[in-house]
């Protein structure tokens, strides 16, 4: 190959490698490429390792072992039989012999023991007599791989304790309200708060963001006033300058720390607009105690937070619609609005939805602005409307991780898993929706 090149020496400037040097040069260039490939691979590996560590850490805390010790063992009460195997009269007998008379009188006054069902009696026995108590908890890795050491430690400190597997993430955890007892605490209130905040934020941010994006992309270059008069020219230029200024600021706003939005929300929605956001002007009385620190204020603040990203991603999606489609529409006698509504928007929708859902899914994880606007960290009642107090998952997690007891760390990890599943399913929904809309528009 190189011989042919050399044969016509006149063609060569002598500045390019010839003969053997070509082979070497190519080898050097290929080697350089392989080095970069290795570097890129390494950075991917680092990323994956960090992700795995994160997942391990959470799972390690959310599952594991607990050592349960009872005040009185079940066997002692029943002579080695199961509570469930006893008759109703026997259960009542156990209660009468083991409870103090005052407690017993109170129970009888509520409803005579003889009239209560077996399950009810067993519950009372468990709560009042056996009183199981978690004396130690162990993360999953220790529970699985360090069993002998744990058992030795337990045997010394709590000889009667029983070691068992515990999943902190369970149905009870998902459906119970908040509690100061970590064994009974759940995240129902927080899940409902997060979901309603999400829905409200979408309802507010989606139309506003898309509307602004359409204006900035499609109508910004319009000249609504008469160009021939000086006043009209001045007005047109003023409108365009303002829109340009707004556009620049939207890009900057998308980088503003979320806590600043929280302060803005506190000043405007919680304080200044309190009569509206607390629902007082609409005659809603549940918001009176919330003083404007309602789910509505939070949704408005979150909408402000995500709006810049929604606008920018919608603008990009609108810009990506080929101008040949717009021209085709205009060429058939469509008005601007018809072209935007029937051609531009349907074609931009997959991109708009993906961008918007990704922006909003980021907002679900936000904690700082909600703390600033005064969301509740301890609340046991579910959100019931626009004007109710609320809490959200990240706040709950934040609250639990700041507690000293180990059990709270475990349920915080369980709540993190729930939050992550929620986020991932939102993102998955965004991708599926986009693929569905794309395939619908392009093929068949």
């Amino acid at each position: 190959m190189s011989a042919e090149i050399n044969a016509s020496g006149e063609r060569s400037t002598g500045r390019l490698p010839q003969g053997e040097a070509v082979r070497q040069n190519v080898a050097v260039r290929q080697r350089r490429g392989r080095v970069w490939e290795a570097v890129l691979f390494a950075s991917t590996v680092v990323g994956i390792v960090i992700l795995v560590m994160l997942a391990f850490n959470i799972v390690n805390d959310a599952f594991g072992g607990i050592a349960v010790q009872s005040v009185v063992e079940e066997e002692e009460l029943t002579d080695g039989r199961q509570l469930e195997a006893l008759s109703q009269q026997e259960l009542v007998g156990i209660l009468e012999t083991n409870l103090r008379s005052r407690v017993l009188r109170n129970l009888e006054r509520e409803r005579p023991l003889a009239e209560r069902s077996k399950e009810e009696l067993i519950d009372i026995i468990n709560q009042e007599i056996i009183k199981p108590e978690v004396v130690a908890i162990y993360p999953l890795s220790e529970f699985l791989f360090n069993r002998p050491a744990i058992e030795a430690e337990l045997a010394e400190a709590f000889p009667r304790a029983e070691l068992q597997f515990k999943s902190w993430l369970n149905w009870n955890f998902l459906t119970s309200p908040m509690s100061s007892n970590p064994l009974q605490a759940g995240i129902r209130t927080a899940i409902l708060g997060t979901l309603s905040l999400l829905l409200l934020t979408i309802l507010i941010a989606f139309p506003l963001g898309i509307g602004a994006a359409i204006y900035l992309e499609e109508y910004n270059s319009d000249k609504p006033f008469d160009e021939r008069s000086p006043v009209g020219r001045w007005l047109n230029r003023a409108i365009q300058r303002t829109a340009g200024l707004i556009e620049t600021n939207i890009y900057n706003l998308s980088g503003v720390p979320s806590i600043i939005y929280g302060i803005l929300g506190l000043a405007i929605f919680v304080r200044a607009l309190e009569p509206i956001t607390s629902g007082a002007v609409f005659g809603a009385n549940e918001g009176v105690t919330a003083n404007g620190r309602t789910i509505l204020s939070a949704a408005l603040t979150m909408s402000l937070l995500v709006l810049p990203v929604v606008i920018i991603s919608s603008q990009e999606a609108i810009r990506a619609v080929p101008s040949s489609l717009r021209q085709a529409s205009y060429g058939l006698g469509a008005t601007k609005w018809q072209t935007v509504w029937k051609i531009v928007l349907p074609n931009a929708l997959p991109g708009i939805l993906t961008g918007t859902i990704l922006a909003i899914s980021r907002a679900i994880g936000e904690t700082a602005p909600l703390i600033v606007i005064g969301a509740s960290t301890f609340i046991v009642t579910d959100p019931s409307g626009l004007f109710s107090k609320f809490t959200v998952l990240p706040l709950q997690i934040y609250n639990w991780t700041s507690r000293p007891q180990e059990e709270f760390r475990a349920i915080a990890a369980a709540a993190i898993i729930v939050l992550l599943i929620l986020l991932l399913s939102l993102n998955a929904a965004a991708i599926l929706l986009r693929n569905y809309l794309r395939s619908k528009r392009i093929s068949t």
Partner: protein
Amino acid sequence: MTSATYDSKYAIETRDMHIYYGAFRAVKDVTFGIERNKITALIGPSGCGKSTVLRSFNRMNDLIPGARTEGEVLYHGQNLYGPDVDAVQVRREIGMVFQKPNPFPKSIYDNIAYGPRINGWKGSKAEMDELVERALRGAALWDEVKDDLKKSGLALSGGQQQRLCIARALAVEPEVILMDEPCSALDPISTLKIEELMFELRQNYTIVIVTHNMQQAARASDYTAFFLMDKDDRAGQLIEYDTTNNIFQNPKDKRTEEYISGRFG
């Protein structure tokens, strides 16, 4: 806009037309008339303003920020750029086919039905079916697609897509069809089909076509307008306008002769 009393052999007439993009004058001093039910070709080298002139006939230039047209473009004796004329109405009566086939990412049926629907179609579903068939037959596409009208317009071949775009333009029942290099993205066989189609359409429509392909102009047009950029101010101008036969066999201007004989451009 259509006035019955106006009687002229021209569908479109321009008078002292100048087109500006911002401060730059792209086309200057164009005065000529497009005859009814004829095919008029606009030819010339790149940058000579022939596409700009074509787009001025249905005010597509309005979509370009800063573009403006001076002088008169008369359609049925009315200036298209008059103060009380809406560009939307102009485009409804003077349709356009673009250089690159640009069907909507919709079904073939919906591609055709889009125009009538946005223009206030009042007919029934059955009438719409009829209209779609008529438009597709008019564009010589019916036999190829009649069995899968639900198929996406983008699934067709390039030549079929361009005929779909022609059918789409026909569906709003225009009087004039402007074609901006409609065959430049097509293979020779598809090109031939479009040219045959143009001859068919001439019976009912006035066609103006911009083309880079001089054989196409010679083969497929009745009149030819030759445009050239003025070297001094870089503005395009009309050099010669005559029947296609005269332009190609007996050009009066030396520059026309040089261009058609392939000496420049």
